[in-house]
């Protein structure tokens, strides 16, 4: 069984929900990322979404835009990101790692080259924000052949017909974008999210992670009650922006946020 599937199965048995932190690889330096990944797991993360920096992150708000700029300023390449995952796997063979980013850096390497290298590095899934399932017909069999899950987004604006399509195209989990906007936007509405997650459950079989607008333990807890997982990104990346030259402070600040979320979600 693939790591992501078994992770959600184990959590379901324990009646717990997945805590899924996002950070951009190479932010604030290449050396920060791997120790931070371990620290996040120790603080209670179940799955890690690792951002692959891109020069034109159209779906991201200013916080993650700046994270991409910091990572690219010292030349974090896709190969570097894969090397980080490989290093992470030396000590952690359990925690699923999903690469999240945009299509162009993957196209630049070529689908087969990318998939092979990602699989060998120990990556479990990819989420490409600007790749809807209609355009994924070519890449999907390549990812499948290397046992990489393709995680697709579902939005508040997604029609029922498209939810069915996305449910069939994806594997691992579905990422429900809780609001119309970019990452790091204003607060989400939990009642609205609950209604939408219910709709998605009736139309698709995959576990549902919810992201965008989750900032603290309270919002993480509320969303975890109505979904299978909670994705938190900008709130963590803010801590990196606040302490770019102090890896220990970054690890501590992010661990504190995640531990509080974990605690609230498990209550």
């Amino acid at each position, binding site marked *: 069984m693939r790591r992501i599937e078994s992770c959600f199965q184990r959590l379901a048995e324990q009646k717990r929900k997945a805590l899924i932190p996002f950070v951009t690889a190479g932010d604030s330096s290449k050396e920060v990322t791997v120790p931070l990944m371990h620290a996040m797991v120790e603080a209670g993360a179940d799955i890690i979404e690792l951002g692959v920096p891109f020069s*034109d992150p159209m779906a*991201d708000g200013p916080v993650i835009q700046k994270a991409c700029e910091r990572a690219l300023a010292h030349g974090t390449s896709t190969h570097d990101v894969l090397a980080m995952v490989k290093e992470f796997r030396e000590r952690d063979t359990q925690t699923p790692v999903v690469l999240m980013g*945009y299509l162009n850096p993957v196209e630049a390497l070529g689908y087969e080259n990318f998939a092979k290298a990602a699989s060998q590095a120990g990556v479990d899934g990819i989420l490409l924000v600007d*790749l*809807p399932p209609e*355009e994924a017909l070519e890449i999907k069999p390549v990812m499948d052949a290397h046992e990489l899950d393709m995680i697709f*987004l579902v939005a508040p604006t997604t029609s029922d017909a498209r939810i069915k399509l996305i449910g069939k195209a994806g594997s691992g989990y579905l990422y429900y974008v809780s609001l*119309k*906007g970019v990452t790091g936007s204003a607060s989400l509405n939990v009642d609205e999210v609950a209604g939408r997650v219910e709709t998605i459950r009736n139309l698709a079989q995959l576990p549902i992670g919810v992201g965008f607008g989750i900032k603290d333990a309270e919002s993480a807890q509320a969303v975890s009650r109505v979904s299978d997982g909670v994705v938190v990104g900008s709130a963590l990346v803010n801590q990196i922006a606040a302490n770019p030259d102090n890896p220990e402070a970054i690890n501590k600040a992010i661990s504190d946020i995640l531990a509080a979320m974990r605690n609230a979600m498990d209550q």
Partner: protein
Amino acid sequence: MSERPDFSAFPDARGHFGQFGGCFVSETLMGALDDLAAMYERLKDDPQFRADFDYDLAHYVGRPSPLYLAERWSKQLGGAKIWLKREDLNHTGAHKVNNTIGQALLAKHMGKPRVIAETGAGQHGVATATVAARLGLKCQVYMGAEDVERQKLNVYRMKLLGAEVIPVTSGSKTLKDAMNEAMRDWVTNVDDTFYIIGTVAGPHPYPLLVRDFQCVIGREAREQSLKQAGKLPDALVACVGGGSNAIGLFHPFLNDDGVAMYGVEAAGDGIETGRHAAPLSAGRPGVLHGNRTYLMEDDNGQIIETHSVSAGLDYPGVGPEHSWLKDLGRVNYVSADDKEALSAFRELTQVEGIMPALESAHALAYARKLAPTMSPDQDIVINLSGRGDKDILTVAAIDGIEF
């Protein structure tokens, strides 16, 4: 080219021109793009919609624009006869308004009270602010901070027209970053906002509908050539940034095998310096801003900063149909650098009394090389896509004159 496709049959239903085009956006926008594609499909052949569009083009824009024989310049160059398709004489001073009229009609049909746009040189921003003022729509225009600086006149024009200009300070602070920011706005305000994209790039159906609205240029030029020159032109020349003026001129001629076409990209300081904006000449296929097309990118797929004296051409991508036409060999993509464009700007101003936009001056610069290789019984139509008033401060600064 015996096996050429029927160019009028593209893109396909999902917006593909061969491997190019498509719809690469985040899920939140897919519904809005599907709605837009469906609305356009329904309206494009609707007699009332066509009539409204044609009426506005005639009475508001001032079409048809003349096809002007530049006799003095032709004689000076000593070769083919040069005809200028005078899009510079349109209301607001460029071809951009053909498209904003069309998209504003769509916005009206879709009941959206707010429009947004990205702009480089400011021509599309002005054209959008203009139609928004006329229809009473709220209008916000995203413009790279660097372009806000070098196109101050257009920024002020937009403000006078009631639009809010939002300087974009991320990335290279030019057109591509303005487009990123407009996309972010649209994803946030998708319910009440219509995004008026200014060129034949972006996700499907934009490359299709912008092309269709701009094809009025080529349709007129075809008719005017037959009437005024007695035959189809031998060559068409247009500048290519995103490529809307070029596709508008080229498309109605694509099935005419005898008509050669030249799309002129901005070579900036020179292709060999790397400081240019010529993805078709020196880039490779990738995905940006919703479509697959030729891009300027590094080995890691990161978009490279571009350079051109002309803000309207300062873009690392190009409309996907151009990428397809390049690979098919139907259109020749060439380039002109900053110096050549500035020299052509001065030459046309002095020889014909027509001051071209710096964008259009790239087309003139290439035509200046092409014309002498052809004979006086041959005809070249150049798309004079915009007027140069907006560029006076840029040219003055190069001349060392401060206002």
